[in-house]
């Protein structure tokens, strides 16, 4: 079964993802992980850019959201996107291990949370959640 985008009206059947991370090494790795799974991805460097790209009309099947980012962090960005009515799968990724911070992140509207660094198997488990 080909990976189908859940948003309609797109020419390709490829899934799309947005990587929101302020670290360029992480962006490169996440891009490669997604690419390996046949997922097209774009990257932004902070939460505000993640929100802005949606305001510009773009939509993604999956958002990989880092928690700690300058200007607007992942928690705020997730909240804002949900307020805007964005129903894409948002997976929080972070190095934080403090429980209440993780809870705050999840409560902001995450569908999944994974501890960094992201690996192939973690990404696959996130994607399985999208497919239901």
């Amino acid at each position, binding site marked *: 079964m080909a990976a189908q985008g859940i948003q309609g009206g797109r020419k390709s059947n490829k899934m799309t993802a947005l990587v929101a991370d302020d*670290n*360029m*090494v992480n962006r490169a*790795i996440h891009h490669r992980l997604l690419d*390996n799974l046949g997922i097209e991805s774009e990257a932004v460097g902070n939460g505000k850019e993640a929100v802005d790209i949606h305001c510009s009309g773009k939509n993604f099947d999956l958002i990989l959201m880092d928690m700690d980012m300058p200007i607007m962090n992942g928690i705020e960005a997730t909240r804002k996107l949900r307020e805007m009515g964005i129903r894409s799968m948002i997976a929080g990724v972070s190095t934080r291990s403090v429980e209440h911070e993780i809870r705050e992140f999840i409560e902001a509207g995450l569908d999944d949370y994974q501890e960094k660094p992201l690996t192939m198997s973690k990404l696959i488990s996130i994607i399985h959640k999208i497919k239901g």
Partner: protein
Amino acid sequence: MDLVQLQRQLVEYRTSLYHEGFLDEQFTQLQELQDENNPDFVVEVVSLFFEDSERLLNELTKALEQQSIDFKRVDAHVHQLKGSSSSIGAQRVQKVCIAFRNYCEEQNVEGCLKCLQQVRHEYSLVKTKLESMFQLEQQILSAGGSIPM
């Protein structure tokens, strides 16, 4: 040195890097992401790491030279360094970063300076070792061989 010897040397060298804690499982993950379509992925990401780390180390040096140190700023840079070192599996660098962040929280200047020195040291060690490893890989490829996993 013949091809088989080179390949053996590489495997031994790589194993020692894991053994001595320079690299961890995350580096293996990166290697597994490399394939015929992306044959230079590891070198590319590691190069990004080198670039990013050097920038961060410079920023850290500057920040810690200030009369009145902005610990939040120092912490932000260390956080970045911790993140990228963790992502490529540079375990020893990552470990120093953890201690470094604790000193930032305590606003302990001496502790921070000590960690900066340590992290520079660990970074330069892992850089040298990775570069040696990449050189060995290149030799193998040039000799027409393949990189053993």
